[in-house]
């Protein structure tokens, strides 16, 4: 692939030290036509307002409570190209890439940057841009609406990175499961970042489950090239009454990737929903998840697992907003930070006045492996209803020294014993994955990750400056 095949629109030819936001404002002003022509009217309809708001508020700063652990503006400061003119990237992902989570008998969709490649038609799944053209009324009903339905989001308004996504996103994925239907297979979405130059990707995912619908969706993030990527992703999820959704996110990119993902979800009554976020390999990652429980008797499980080393940075920020009574939420995040890595977790549980009979439990456990790694943990309970059972706990700790000794007495070398204990530590999250093949695969991947083997086969820029030719792919 030659560089000139991608018409990358640089953010700005040469920034003269202006503030980080202005390059995006300028780019939008100069390329608005191009952006719109590469997208669809429903998406175009909300761009200007988003950009206006962005121009007014800019990027969130470290002084803002929800962004205290990640400097957003710094991540957005470098010069990235954008594929605004929608040049197809000439790559056949199935030939060059095999995801680390194969054989799940899933329906497979590849997203090259933000452009979907469906191998064959999959029921209920389409390109977001195409959906805007085919079913404009349905998409318009939901697109960019989640934030306004989640009170805690509409109160504060979206963050700058979300506004940028709304302003620049041209395509993405649309999943719409009609009333009472269920997807035959789990849907596996393989996001592949590809570019010969440093690239910004703005991806949008819209998931709508009508009443009683069921779906299992797995989103895997990978980077094929060693250039820097800046990804913004906004996932909007609407779960109508009695629907069931298992949503998995797995990030396995490299140290030059910056990811800003925002999950916004509203959940009706009697739903069973789970969200699992697994960060195995990354550069800088900020995952924001906002869930509003708007109907009674729903259950939400939010789990997360972070394995970070080198100078990786992972910031998970969640909010579960109990609006309706009698809902249950369970949240478990486990993080391991080694080398000079930073892991932050901030999880807010909000129980509003009418959300009586809420049951909520939030747990965050961390391992800080070196004196140069850093762990931040901030579980939060904010409660306005009295008939509730809410608790949270967080720990930062060391591996169990007694267990370590016991294993060594059995002849297991210290390094191996540590590995087993680390696996067991994060394994608790993986155990909650409902898809058995995925669970097995994740156990295996995490073991590889702790052994330092994972980065070698994913073409990580830091460990392998000269990755093998792309066409050789990787063993599964």
């Amino acid at each position, binding site marked *: 692939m030659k560089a000139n095949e991608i018409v990358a629109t640089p953010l700005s030819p040469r920034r003269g030290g202006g503030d980080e936001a202005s390059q995006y404002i300028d780019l939008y002003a100069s390329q608005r036509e191009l952006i719109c022509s590469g997208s669809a009217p429903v998406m175009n309809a909300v761009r200007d307002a988003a950009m206006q708001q962005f121009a007014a508020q800019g990027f969130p700063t470290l002084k803002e409570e929800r962004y205290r652990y990640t400097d957003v503006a710094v991540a957005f400061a470098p010069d990235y190209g954008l594929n605004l003119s929608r040049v197809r990237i000439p790559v056949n992902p199935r030939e060059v890439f095999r995801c680390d989570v194969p054989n799940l008998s899933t329906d497979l969709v590849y997203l090259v940057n933000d452009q979907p490649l469906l191998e064959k038609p999959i029921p209920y799944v389409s390109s977001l841009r195409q959906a805007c053209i085919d079913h404009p009324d349905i998409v318009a009903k939901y697109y960019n609406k989640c934030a306004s339905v989640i009170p805690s989001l509409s109160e504060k308004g979206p963050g700058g990175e979300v506004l940028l996504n709304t302003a620049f996103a041209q395509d993405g994925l649309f999943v719409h499961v009609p009333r009472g239907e269920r997807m035959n297979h789990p849907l596996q979405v393989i996001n592949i970042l590809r570019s010969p130059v440093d690239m910004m990707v703005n991806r949008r995912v819209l998931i709508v489950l009508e009443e009683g619908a069921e779906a299992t969706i797995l989103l895997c993030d990978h980077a094929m090239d060693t250039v820097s990527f800046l990804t913004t992703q906004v996932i909007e999820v609407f779960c109508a009454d009695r629907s069931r959704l298992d949503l998995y996110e797995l990030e396995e990119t490299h140290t030059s990737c910056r990811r800003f993902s925002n999950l916004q979800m509203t959940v009706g009554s009697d739903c069973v929903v789970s969200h699992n976020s697994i960060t195995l390999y990354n550069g800088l990652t900020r995952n924001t998840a906002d869930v509003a429980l708007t109907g009674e008797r729903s259950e939400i499980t939010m789990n997360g697992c972070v394995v970070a080393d080198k100078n990786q940075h992972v910031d998970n920020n969640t909010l579960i907003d109990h609006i309706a009574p009698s809902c249950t939420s369970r949240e478990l995040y486990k993080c391991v930070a080694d080398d000079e890595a930073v892991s932050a977790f901030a999880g807010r549980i909000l129980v509003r006045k009418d959300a009586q009979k809420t049951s909520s439990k939030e747990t965050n456990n961390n391992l800080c492996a070196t004196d140069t790694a850093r762990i931040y943990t901030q579980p939060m309970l904010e409660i306005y209803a009295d008939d509730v059972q809410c608790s949270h*706990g967080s720990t930062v700790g060391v591996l169990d020294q007694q267990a370590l000794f016991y294993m060594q007495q059995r002849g297991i070398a210290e390094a191996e014993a540590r590995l087993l204990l680390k696996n067991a530590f994060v394994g608790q999250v993986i155990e909650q994955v409902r898809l058995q093949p995925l669970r097995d695969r994740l156990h295996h991947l995490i073991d590889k990750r702790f052994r330092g083997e994972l980065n070698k086969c994913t073409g990580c820029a830091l460990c392998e400056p000269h990755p093998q030719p792309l066409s050789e792919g990787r063993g599964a």
Partner: protein
Amino acid sequence: MSDKDLNKDKLSGPAQPLSENRNAREERDGNASAETSNDFVRRIAEQKYQFGFTTDVHTEVIDRGLNEDVVRLISQKKGEPDWLLQFRLEAFRYWQSQEQPSWGHLRLPDIDYQDISYYADPTARKADGPKTLDDIDPEVMKTFDKLGIPLEERLALSGTAVDAVMDSVSVKTTFKERLSERGIIFCSISEAVREYPDLVRQYLGSVVPYRDNYFAALNSAVFSDGSFVYIPKNTRCPMELSTYFRINARNTGQFERTLIVCDEGSYVSYLEGCTAPMRDENQLHAAIVEIVVLDNAKVKYSTVQNWYPGDSEGRGGVLNLVTKRGHLRGRNSRLSWTQVETGSAITWKYPSCVLSGDGSQAEFYSVAVTNNHQQADTGTKMIHLGRNTRSTIISKGISAGHSENSYRGLVRVGRHADGARNYSSCDSLLFGNLCGAHTFPYMDVQNPTATAEHEATTSKINEDQLLYCNQRGISTEDAVGLIVNGYAKDVLNKLPMEFAVEAQKLLQVSLEGTVG
């Protein structure tokens, strides 16, 4: 009886409000068993504040407003040396450059800093402050009597020395002479500046620098009085030391400053109590407490905070914006904070510990009760810097009425704090669904051998326990008292005995009517 009546009444002695409460309770007891929890919630709002009377005493109050001249005037009135004036001026200039913080879970009213008087002296009749009891205005003496703090040593609680501060001035410090026999210094900070300038200069601002935060800067600029304690090496202070703070004058702020230095191998237990009259407007209280703990020394600091909380509609009340911090400088030094917070319209307070000495240990025990329209955002910071340092945090929040009660705490473990340990437990109890109970713990750990653990629960009062008590013939109100005291027991147990009894009563009174 409404709050206003109580105010007008200008209670003549401490016995009366107590008996009034007792009568009120007896009346209610008649049909307590029939009471529903809704009634209870409604009645929470009817609680009384016992200490809301005012004292009619000649008080010299300087004009309202804050500028450099006012800072100079305060310094001049206290006859301070130039270095202290310069300290105040620097702090004032810094304060001017800052904005009032807004990160707390509080609706802080706009404070007009120019509408407050920064110095009020109820002892001003005498040129140089009171020398003997005879010099003190009898009204002032009476006030402290009413508060249960007799200033005559023969009447005093045995084993407690008191520094009594009204508005901006220390009125009297008891047992000074007896303590000085052991080399213990216990006096007002103004006196300390005059008598022990080197000690004060060495430590003042060394734990809480004026740049620490907005209110710390304000205090550093205009602080009036407070206590100074120095315990020399290898001395166990033979009595409890205490300071009683009273705000009396209208439209004044109180900016007390306390400095405690506990030298190597020594021990002191220090108590702090506070009350204020009922007034319709807010009163500002922005204090700083600094504690320095050296090798093998131990300090126990207890507070029962009962500033006027405002009326049931949320009018008036003290804005309690306080910076308290201890520096555990020495090896194996220990500091324990215990607080019972029942008063103030707004509490913004995080008694903290910096554990730099190897093997140092810190504790924070807190009960915070909010009722009516009170708001509290309180907790602690434990900063682990030394090796094998330990900290424990036990916090119990109780919210009723329309109040907001937040625990906010930070545990930080620095890179070199090998073997640091922290345990935090924060529970919240809710009465009714018009109030809020919140928990915001922050942890920041940079050491692989450290362990930190936090857990929190939020629940309402256990109805099975209430029913059980009712079935045994205990009124709902008394049952709530029992249960709440049981809930707060871990903290109350940490208080010196007289204080613990006082605090228990206070808890019950604060929740009177809510309990059920």
